[in-house]
């Protein structure tokens, strides 16, 4: 059984064997390599939870088999075969008390371990890097506060993919701009709700570089199903490269190129809500987006270095085509950083979905971007509206977006 065979520590191997016997019957039919499998921990926090599972599930299996076995025996043994009507006894108190005390004892054992794990998981004192995570209908924003020890000297804002160093204790400070969302990367830790007006802490740590999939787990409205996330663990060196790349100065496209025309379209159509750090207008003044004037929750994904990401629109669509995606997802952990940092090249770009998105976003993803449903939010959009771009504009925009690396 795949789920069980991968356990590493010896303690867990013993437990694992136990689970294996009980669970193999049930789990033989499990999917392999399911990206969100909760029983394939890839980091210490998820392993702590899985250790607890390895205690509780066998107990549940054993109790279940005993009880159901007893039940089947009773169903067969005491079937009406014409025997006498039994004497009307009303029960035996000592038996009742035993049957109350035994489960209580089993549960108190489970309780002790549970108690310990709860407090272990809540530990935040030894955090090494802090990332703010903000949920919004239906995407996640990640911003990296200034942390010179990690080379972060100016804030980095990204979305869709959480990039962090492997083997490092990461603290997510979760909040939300609108409704309750829940951040969940099953391979790294359990879920924690992102509640507007509150800051919740969630610790993540990945043993190895790699890509860990997740999904918003708290129902958050229309496109809840389309609110996915991917967590990217990079080796420390690769992470430093990624950080440096995110902070590099903006290079405007050379005048007269398609890309430069694309920049103009971008400034006219997109810069109202989307931010590209370092972008300047004709007078040389920085362009600062004002999504709060158009979007109910007041933010839109920051598109600086867009092409370093593999997904867009709340990780609903891949920014890379299927082949390039397989290269990244399938890369072994030592090669993963290299594959990921390549980013999106022109021949890797998922032209079809990106163009369809620019053409008519609300058709691609259910959003409250239809003008007839905006009454209660005072006419502000929720999600990207239909912009009526021409095909020509889209060509230019795609060319421009490809320069954002």
């Amino acid at each position, binding site marked *: 059984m795949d789920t069980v065979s991968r356990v590493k520590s010896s303690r867990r191997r013993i437990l694992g064997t136990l689970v294996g016997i009980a669970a193999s019957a049930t789990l033989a039919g499990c999917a*392999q390599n399911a990206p969100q499998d909760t029983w394939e921990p890839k980091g210490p926090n998820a392993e702590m939870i899985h250790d607890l599972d390895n205690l509780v599930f066998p107990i*549940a299996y054993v109790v279940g088999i005993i009880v159901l076995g007893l039940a089947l025996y009773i169903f067969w043994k005491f079937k009406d075969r014409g025997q*006498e009507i039994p004497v*009307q006894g009303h029960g035996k108190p000592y038996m009742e008390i035993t049957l109350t005390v035994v489960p209580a004892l089993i*549960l108190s054992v489970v309780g002790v371990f549970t108690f310990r794990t709860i407090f272990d998981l809540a530990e935040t004192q030894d955090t090494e890097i802090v990332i703010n995570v903000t949920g919004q209908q239906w995407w996640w924003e990640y911003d990296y506060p200034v942390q010179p020890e990690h080379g972060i000297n100016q804030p980095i804002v990204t979305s869709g993919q959480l990039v962090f160093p492997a083997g490092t204790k990461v603290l997510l400070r979760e909040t939300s701009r609108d*409704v309750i969302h829940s951040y969940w990367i099953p391979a790294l830790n359990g879920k924690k709700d992102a*509640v507007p007006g509150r800051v919740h802490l969630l610790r993540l740590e990945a043993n190895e570089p790699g890509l860990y999939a997740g999904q918003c787990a708290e129902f958050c409205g229309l496109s809840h199903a389309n609110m996915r996330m991917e967590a990217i663990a990079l080796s420390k060196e690769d992470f430093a490269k990624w950080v440096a790349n995110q902070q590099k100065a903006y290079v405007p496209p050379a005048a007269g190129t398609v890309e430069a025309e694309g920049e103009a379209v971008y400034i006219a159509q997109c810069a109202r809500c989307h931010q590209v750090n370092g972008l300047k207008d004709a007078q040389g003044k920085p362009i600062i987006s004002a999504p709060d004037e158009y979007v109910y929750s007041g933010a839109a994904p920051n598109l600086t270095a867009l092409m370093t990401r593999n997904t867009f629109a709340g990780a609903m669509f891949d920014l890379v085509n299927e082949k390039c995606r397989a290269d990244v997802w399938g890369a072994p952990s030592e090669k993963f950083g290299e594959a990921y940092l390549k980013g999106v090249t022109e021949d890797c770009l998922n032209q079809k979905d990106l163009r369809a998105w620019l053409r008519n976003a609300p058709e691609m993803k259910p959003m409250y971007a239809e003008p007839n*449903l905006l009454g209660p939010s005072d006419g502000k959009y929720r999600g990207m509206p239909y912009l009526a771009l021409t095909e020509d504009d889209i060509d230019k925009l795609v060319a421009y977006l490809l320069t954002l690396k």
Partner: protein
Amino acid sequence: MAIIERPDTATVPAVVTPSQAFGVIKRPVASSGWREWLFTVDHKKIGIMYGAVALFFFIVGGVEALLIRLQLAAPDGRILSADQYNQMFTMHGTTMVFLFGMPMAAAFANYFLPLQIGARDVAFPRLNALSLWLLVVGGLILNASWFLGGAADGGWFMYAPNSGPVFSPSNGVDYWVLGLQVAGLASLIGSINLIVTVLNMRAPGMTLMKMPIFTWMILVVQFLLVFSLPVITVALVLLMFQRSYGATFFDVSQGADPLLWQHLFWIFGHPEVYVLILPAFGIISEVLPTFSRKPLFGYPFVVFSGAAIGLVGFGVWAHHMFASGLGPVSVAVFSIATMAIAIPTGVKVFNWLLTMWGGKIWYTTAMKFAIGLVTLFTIGGLSGVTHSVAPSDTQQTDTYYIVAHFHYVLFGGMVFGLFSGFYYWWPKVFGKMLNEKLGSWNFWLMVIGMNMTFGPMHILGLQGQPRRMYVWTEARAGEGFFNLGFWNLIASIGSFILAAGVLFFLINIVHTAKKGKVAPADPWDARTLEWITTNPPKPHNFDRIPVVHHLDEFFHRKYAEDTATHTMKRYATAEEVIKAEEDAADAHIHLPSPSYWPLVLALGIGVLCMGVVYGVPVMVVGAAILVFSVFGWVLEPSTADDSEIDPPSVDGSTKEIAPIG
């Protein structure tokens, strides 16, 4: 329908109603056709109507579930849009909990509780009718939203702030709030009524510890309702004020805490789980002893474990919120408390098994459903223990693993218990036996369908498929033949097998009504008081209120232990026991007459509620009807005037007890 004694010059009725001439409107006397049902205050008719309403909504909720499973059968389903899907799962949950689970339990409670304690009706017959009509009005308001701009789309838990006007702009949530308020009022009134009935109207000799176990469980449930419903009422009021009147209770920009809603909702919502399951426990605690020919093993333990479940149930609400960011201390406390609740639940399962141990088990359909509950609920209970472990729960909550768990508990538990009750008590209610062969089809299809539908969901959940997603994607489904897509398909197929099982039940009803076998007086060799009367019972239930000496009184009137051989010997047939009671019939039996007011009052409340959506004028009309009917109710005499409903006796006898109408 009313029963009164013939006017007897020698025995003047003990109770006179001098003020009845002042009634606002005379009590209705016609007791045939639709009026017989619309204005009835008879607990049995009300019970049957509760059952019909609940069954209707069971089918509605079931169709919603089938649509959900159709959508999810394959990746990127296109049967429903995102919006429709969200409405569908919201209304599926709401309907099954509030319009099927609770009313069906109320149907059984209404019909059998007075019979089991030897009473002629509930304490407040008109309030009983009011509960029913309020439920109907609440159900109509809830479901009217489908046709008035879309149903509620925030999930049955309706977390704020997603339920606020900005995030849910249609009126669906408004209807949902109002519908639940009305249905909640119905349950509150019903629960007060039933508690008073149990506490004050038991047959002579029936101490609390001689009460049938079903009555006990219903009593516990009613206490849970009395104390949990006001909490959800507060939550709903806050939400209503926010949506309709500009309050800011869940407006985060004003500093509100969205977790307030979650706490209020689950302080109600967790006891609600026991409200749904305990009646089913009560039913099978009657069925298992009957068909095992043994008394319930450890009756006091079953009673007290039921009460303990009810009590502890109030202290574990936050286990629905392990992922919502409570501190580790509260998570630990609620985690341990939740484990504690497994203990009394386990006691129940062991007692059921030990009841059968050494018995003489007769596998009728009712019994099959009861043991179906015992086994399926055990599975659901054990998966429940796995998520009382808070850290594990943070991986499991909001995934299909939870869906699997609570469907094993609520479908395998509640629904199987209720079906067991249908087959067990159908002859009592309608005087005809449900067909056992069709029943067998019904049972096996439901068992297979249920396990195929909800079994794979354990795997789906543990392998990372969250709930409430209108589509799932191939990219996250894993590899191999048994990938998540396979299990989603199996679950969808299972749901249709399950539906086929339910269809067999409906066929069985029609078949039985047309050519069902007439039920004998005591088809199951039963044990409790409700069988010491005819099938179906007379309008006044018992000709004489039985005097109780034993737990399982009826059984002990039929059987006694042969001291020589230490075996049970039958000394009397059921017919003889019933005949003995009829021969000693009471001379004076008064039943309350039907009344218009429950129906009018319920309609008034419905109109009042629509005023929240459609403005003050509608509200004023509703309030006027409400006030009018409340005072009409208060001033109404308790029975219609004898002269109005008592036709002269044909043969001049004075002692006959006669149904009039």
